């Protein structure tokens, strides 16, 4: 026959003894939580059964939150050496989502529209977005500083600046919610016209990323308060946060100041 073992070397252990098969219950739980959310969406928006939708949400959200919490506590500090590189690939995929929304925007504005903004658009605030930009950039700097302290071994300093970052992120979300409420109050909604569609979907898409970023921070903050700080986790989480920050520049320049 062809090849022998000579070109491939591995140790000669007994084949019968091997490690137990790795298992984790959390991926399974999270997946079916996602199914419940999908069912809830259809119950609410397709079949108009809000009560059933709330029940599905009541099943799905605890499953996802519990699943993520279980996953984090199971995995924290183990085998995240590669997660930084993996986050790079994930960010590529995320960037393409924003790209699609921007592409839809450009098609509407450059290809179809005769006048822009279309009728029904109210003037957008011009100062608030600048403040929001400043807050988000500041949060990027604070998490960078926190990471720096983590590498230097200053656990308390790390936690302090992490909390500042979370507060800045929450402030950003608060300002965004304030702005949305006012615009909706003025009669400018996602269904008003093409620009309303773009404005609320793009800022909403970005806001959902801020929410996820904050959720990652909070999920890691709990073990961090108990002294369990995983460098791989925080390097990765911070990379994601910087991405959310950078995307905001595109959102702000395309949606508010063009």
């Amino acid at each position, binding site marked *: *026959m*062809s090849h022998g073992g000579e*070109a*491939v*070397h*591995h*140790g000669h*252990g*007994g*084949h019968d003894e*091997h*490690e*137990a*098969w*790795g*298992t*984790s*219950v959390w*991926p*399974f739980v*999270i*997946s079916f939580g*996602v*199914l419940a959310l*999908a069912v809830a969406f*259809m119950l609410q*928006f*397709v079949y108009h059964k809000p009560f059933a939708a709330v029940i599905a949400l009541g099943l799905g959200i605890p499953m996802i939150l519990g699943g993520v919490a279980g*996953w984090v506590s*199971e*995995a924290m500090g183990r*085998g995240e050496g*590669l*997660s930084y*590189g*993996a986050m790079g*690939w*994930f960010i*590529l*995929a*995320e960037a*393409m*989502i924003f*790209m*699609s929304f921007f*592409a*839809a925007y450009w*098609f*509407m504005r450059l*290809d*179809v529209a005769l006048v822009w903004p*279309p009728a029904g658009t109210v003037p957008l605030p011009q100062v608030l977005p600048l403040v929001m930009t400043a807050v988000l950039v500041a949060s990027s700097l604070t998490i960078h500083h926190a990471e720096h302290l983590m590498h230097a071994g200053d656990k308390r300093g790390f936690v302090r600046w992490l909390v500042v970052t979370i507060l800045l992120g929450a402030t950003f979300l608060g300002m965004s919610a304030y702005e949305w409420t006012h615009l909706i109050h003025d009669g400018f909604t*996602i*269904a008003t*016209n*093409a*620009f*309303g*569609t773009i404005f609320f*979907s793009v800022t909403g898409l970005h806001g959902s990323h801020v929410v996820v970023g904050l959720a990652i921070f909070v999920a890691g903050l709990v073990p961090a308060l108990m002294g369990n700080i995983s460098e791989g986790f925080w390097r990765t989480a911070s990379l994601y946060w910087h991405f959310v920050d950078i995307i905001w520049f595109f959102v702000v320049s395309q949606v508010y100041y063009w």
Partner: protein
Amino acid sequence: MNLKEWIFTTDHKRVGILYLIGSIAAFGVAGIMALLMRAELSAIGPTITADPTTYNVWLYAHGAIMILGFQIPALTGFFANYCVPLMIGAKDVAFPRVNALSVWLFYVGVILALLTFFIPDPPDVMWTGYPPYSTITAGNTALYSLTVLILGFASIIGGVNFLTTVAFMRAPGLGWGKLNVFVWCILGAFVMQLIFVPVLGSAVTLISLDKYLGTHFFDPAMGGDVLTYQNLFWFYSHPAVYVIFLPFIGVVFEIIATFARNPVFNYKAAVYGGIGGIVLISGEVWIHHLYVSGMPDWLRIGQMVSTLLISVPVGLLVISLVGTLYKGAISFETPMLYALGVVFLFLIGGLTGIPLAITSLTVNLSETYYVVGHFHYVMAVAGTFAIFGGVYYWFPKMSGRMYNELWGKIGFWITFVGVNIVFWTMMDIGARIGLPRRYYDYAQFPQAADAQHLMTIGAVILGVGFVIALLNWIIGAAKGPKAGDNPWGSPSLEWTTVSPPPHGNWPSPPSVSEEWSPYAHGKR
């Protein structure tokens, strides 16, 4: 066997087998849809249903489940999971739990897709879901969007996982130039998934936003643009053809190198030129799906050129495959039959695609059965043959047992005959009669009746062939003879461990020497 160890498993081999079971189940359901459609079309007028919407739901379920529930998960889920860590000498993937999340999200996606048959208003939007129809139909478009979104997300996290795994977890001594061609194909496929799937996810999300939340992305009356959807959709769905093509041609490479006992011919040209070229060009040919949707001529001509350009890297891959056979010590076990079948079917599919790329011809062929026959040859059938051949090829590794060779060959030939009856006839009536695709009935085309009847018979024949293969696997896994660790005599790393491999794959991680290559077959 411990059921809990299977359901909650994070081991790449078991995750892979879960992917295989789920995708074969999806294949069965989508195949039944195809048979229902063929039964309906076997004669003019209502045959088994008098309701065209029911037919449209079958059409939707067949396409959506075959592509998103069977081919992509079988190729980038099952084969990637089972083979890639073994081929690169890794104990597992980089993120085993993420892997488990991806397979269960895949199951959730398939469950959603199957809900189609239990809700009162199933989606009837085909797998393409074009607006404005998909935003005004009484069918449940949200089911379509959510299915695509969840399967897409499963794909993305799978992609992140595998790119990281191959980049950082190769065995000592296993350089980039020594990777199996299959591993390169998986890398190419996942790079494309990461770039393009999010765009599909966005496109179908926008449909649901339009339909259920009152946005105006695709509503021209309010400043939206219907063509945006077609652009976003095909920006993913054309590369999706290569996401299917690359892994299946990778499987064929492994099989042909093993059964020809030859190293892969022109490895560098195949990998860097073939796979690299496809990934590079894949992102800028989608507009050829919009040839008849209206566009400026300069764009149409440019797209024709870049579409034809795709045949260069594809040609490099085919030359490599055929060159690998040259002067080989070829034997014709079942996996080899399937692999050679793929080359044959793919060549027919590829060559009949050229008229569709040429703008002057495609205007006449567009929306006819010719298109349906072409893409079934090039992607549906060639891909499915590669999946079946690949399962046969790694069957002894997965189960530790051997399938029945005779029944394997019988199954292959029955399927092969059935497939050519169906899809050759389809291209024929598309080109000669111009029979429009998608229609529930064809009373205006009585001259197509005989051909339609013949295709229905062919569909039953190919169905029988697939069922024989499935039974062969089930019986072989249960009570086939013991296969040994390396029944094919391949030097590739997955054959150096026991069959089936234990958790962790090797007692201690392997390392490879300077002269080793996955295709260095010794002299016989």
